[in-house]
């Protein structure tokens, strides 16, 4: 057994080819993780360039054209190359089969194909950067995107290809969750991260095809002038916005649902307490995934839509906020009568609750049509979606990394540095984006390379704190990689935090190549902290 014990998915099939042609979902998850972090840093760098340009009015670092390319690439890379593919791809691939007790995902070859389609699509995006960038905004609104001479086609082709990767991942996850659960693992015994992945995958396979057809129509518009989106040829740019946002609003739920799943895993484990309202959280995941398809028009309140459709969109938008509110209150009440330990994942989870609540509540402002007419396309919207995407998804992603790092790599990181970095991220983030709410209220438009004198003060605060935010995130991620270095390798044991889901209780860390020695038998629910005591194998 001992030789067998040392064998894990990281070292078992040796050699580079065993990684390149791997069918092991855990290795594919790692490949998504590292490429995701790479694109995250690239996007982050572009963000810092923008922030330092906006420190003072006037074009001091970069000219208008360069700024337009930088903000477009920042948006496109962060969304299409990091948040949408990498988070469900990385954590989802590593954890899903472990959590449902399966040996692998339903279609391992399809899983590997989806990673290579993702990297093939990313090549196009990188080519766009080298070849002079694209300056249409990540939304590619026509008619500017049909007239712009920048690389619109390579970027849209790249996004079109990456769309297939997220469709295939969605197919894989749905098949795995439905069909590969071990006997006895009913839907209400599933960890809530699996519910979140299920909701995400449903949205992925239903929304991404419409993005694919939109990108194809945009490319045909540029090549053949088909006149569907180009007003000079009888088309209608608002119809493009309908097509685009029919995908892109559900896409923001692709981004946030995995983050909800991560938080639903971290808080019960680190407060050693049964999750509050399991069924409420599970069902609100599915209802968010569904209602997400009805509300895309609130991105187009000033685009000249019909008054009737604005009222309908505003009405339904308010029903997306309710299930999210239920989730947040349930997470907080989970800590009631628990044993909360302030480990780095828990710090990220708490800052997620703080930041995402602000993000969610500011969405209520933007939902009211009368207010949105003033706030649309201003910095208020920029602050809102950064609070939700960065304050929500990326903080939760960092929390998830810190939570499952010992399980995936079998090493423990330095927790004090991690806590400090988490604090830095929290403070830096608030400093960067809270002033932008005020900028937006005072009428500072979005996507401006230069601005009036009246906005200088808030922009300089935002730039100063964005440096702090950048450094803290860098420290947080480097601290994780620091745990690989030989001399500070600490064995966290198979269950460092005392989790009760299958990936903690039934596998070593890092797990065996085929996940489980023999098929696990379910003894208790995912959060039965009131019935069973599970020892923490890692004493600080």
């Amino acid at each position, binding site marked *: 057994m001992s030789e067998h014990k040392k064998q894990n998915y990281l070292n078992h099939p040796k050699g580079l080819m065993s990684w390149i042609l791997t069918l092991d979902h855990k290795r594919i998850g790692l490949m998504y993780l590292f490429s995701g972090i790479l694109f995250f840093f690239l996007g982050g760098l572009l963000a810092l360039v923008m922030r330092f340009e906006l420190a003072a009015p006037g074009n001091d670092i970069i000219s208008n054209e360069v700024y337009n390319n930088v903000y477009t690439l920042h948006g496109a890379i962060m969304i299409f190359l990091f948040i949408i593919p990498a988070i469900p791809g990385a954590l989802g691939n590593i954890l899903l089969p472990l959590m449902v007790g399966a040996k692998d995902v339903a279609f391992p070859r399809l899983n590997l194909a989806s990673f290579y389609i993702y990297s093939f699509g990313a090549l196009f995006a990188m080519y766009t950067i080298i070849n002079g960038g694209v300056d249409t905004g990540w939304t590619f609104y026509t008619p500017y995107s049909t007239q712009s001479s920048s690389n619109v086609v390579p970027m849209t082709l790249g996004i079109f290809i990456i769309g297939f990767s997220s469709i295939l991942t969605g197919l894989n996850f749905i098949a795995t969750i439905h069909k590969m659960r071990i006997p006895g693992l009913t839907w209400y015994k599933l960890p809530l991260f699996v519910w979140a992945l299920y909701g995400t995958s449903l949205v992925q396979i239903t929304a991404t095809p419409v993005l694919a057809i939109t990108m194809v129509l945009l490319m045909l518009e540029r090549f053949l002038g088909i*006149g569907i989106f180009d007003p000079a040829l009888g088309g*209608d740019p608002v119809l493009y916005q309908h097509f685009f946002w029919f995908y892109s609003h559900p896409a923001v739920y692709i981004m946030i649902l995995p983050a909800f799943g991560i938080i639903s895993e971290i808080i019960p484990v680190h407060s050693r307490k049964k999750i509050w309202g399991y069924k409420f959280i599970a069902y609100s995941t599915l209802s968010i995934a569904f209602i997400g398809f009805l509300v*895309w028009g609130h991105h187009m309140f000033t685009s*000249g*839509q*019909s008054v009737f*459709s604005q009222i309908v969109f505003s009405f339904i938008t308010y029903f997306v906020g309710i299930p999210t509110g239920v989730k947040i209150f349930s997470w907080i009440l989970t800590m009631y009568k628990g044993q909360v330990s302030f480990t780095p994942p828990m710090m990220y989870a708490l800052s997620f609750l703080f930041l995402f609540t602000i993000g969610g509540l500011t969405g209520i402002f933007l939902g009211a049509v009368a207010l949105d007419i003033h706030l649309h396309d201003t910095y208020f919207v920029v602050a809102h979606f950064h609070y939700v995407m960065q304050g929500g998804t990326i903080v939760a992603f960092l929390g998830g990394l810190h939570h499952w790092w010992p399980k995936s790599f079998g090493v423990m990181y330095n927790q004090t540095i991690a806590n400090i970095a988490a604090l830095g991220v929290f403070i830096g983030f608030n400093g960067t984006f809270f002033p932008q709410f005020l900028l937006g209220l005072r009428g500072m438009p979005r996507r401006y390379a230069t601005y009036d004198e009246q906005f200088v003060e808030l922009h300089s605060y935002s730039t100063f704190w964005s440096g702090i935010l950048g450094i803290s995130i860098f420290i947080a991620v480097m601290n994780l990689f620091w745990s690989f270095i030989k001399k500070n390798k600490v064995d966290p044991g198979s269950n460092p935090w005392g989790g009760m889901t299958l990936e903690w209780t039934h596998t070593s860390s890092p797990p065996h190549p085929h996940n489980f020695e023999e098929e696990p038998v379910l003894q208790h629910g995912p959060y039965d902290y009131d019935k069973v005591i599970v020892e923490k194998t890692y004493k600080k």
Partner: protein
Amino acid sequence: MSEHHITPLRTYLIIASLLLFLSAVTVWVSYVDLGPLNIVVAMLVATVKASLVAFFFMHLLWDDKKNLTMFLMSLMFFGIFVTITLLDTEFRGDLGLNPEVKNPINNRASFYDTLPLTDTHGHPVDEHSDDHHEDKEHH
């Protein structure tokens, strides 16, 4: 070993003939001018044919109900996309307030003004030239 349901041959043949018959019906109905009803009838017949194909040829009738729900979900999201987009495109300039919002500025694409008139074979026809009939003999 395989307990999959095997559809009897007779069912396939009946369904195929039904489909062919319905195709003939829909073509025949299209010649009868029912005004706006035409499109409704055409869609009804097409939906009947589509459900025949889905339930019998694609085994949805005897398969695990999950597959049927997946197929119905796709139709539902298609319906959502159509209805809500039409909420905007059909009601523009509604409440009768702003007639300007309804009518487009320059609807016809500009390249039409430069296009020469052609005959039914696509060859340009110069109205003023008299060798009109020669074009016809070319092919």
